[in-house]
């Protein structure tokens, strides 16, 4: 098993009512699998699934990126800075 930190913002933060989670995951978990797991816990988030991008250790990554122990993951629903 690995442990990762998940940063939550916008709709994800609203759904979980917190800004950060720590998750225990099987080895070889992909970032998209982590996201699906969270959406399963909060079905109101499913509308965001197709629009969410992923970041690991402050870099954008593909959905298939495999997570490592200690990674800091962020789920990025549509951004609106500026």
């Amino acid at each position, binding site marked *: 098993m690995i442990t990762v930190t998940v*940063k939550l*913002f*916008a*709709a994800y*933060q609203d759904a979980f009512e917190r800004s950060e989670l720590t998750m225990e995951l099987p080895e070889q978990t992909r970032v998209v699998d982590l996201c699906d797991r969270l959406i399963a816990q909060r079905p109101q988030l499913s509308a965001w699934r197709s*629009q969410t991008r992923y*970041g690991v*250790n*402050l*870099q*954008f990554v593909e959905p298939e990126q495999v997570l490592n122990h200690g990674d*800091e993951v*962020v789920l*990025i*629903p*549509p*951004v*609106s*800075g*500026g």
Partner: protein
Amino acid sequence: MTSLLSSPDLTPQHPGDRFLIGPEPLSLAQAYNQADDAANGAVVAMSGMVRNQTGGKPVEALDYQAYEPMALQVFRQIGEQIRQQWPEVTRLVIHHRTGRLTVGEISVLVAVGCPHRGEAFAACQYAIDTLKHNAPIWKKECFSDGSTSWVNCC
């Protein structure tokens, strides 16, 4: 966090770049001064502020959230891309505010210094366009009728 920020994968900051993200009110004068350079012939600055309405609906405030360390990484990448496309750019300044902002308050400042104005306009526009598409920053509109909604920029 310390280990993340010293990761070899992160983009180094160009010496002519000045970035800021946080809850303090932004200052155009400060951003402009940071873009100053004796080799400049022009500085182009853009400020974004809270408009009094969106699609005809009166806006009271905007609430900004940011994943700050990744936003700064995106800003550094913007700086790197600008230096590749417009090597003449002397300075790039990006300041972004977080938290609750009311009508008229500045949410973002971008300033670019250059020997010539054409590149300064182009690089400033590139920076704000790329920031809007990629920086992990989110805003929630708070309407006068009490309703709120997360904005999708594009």
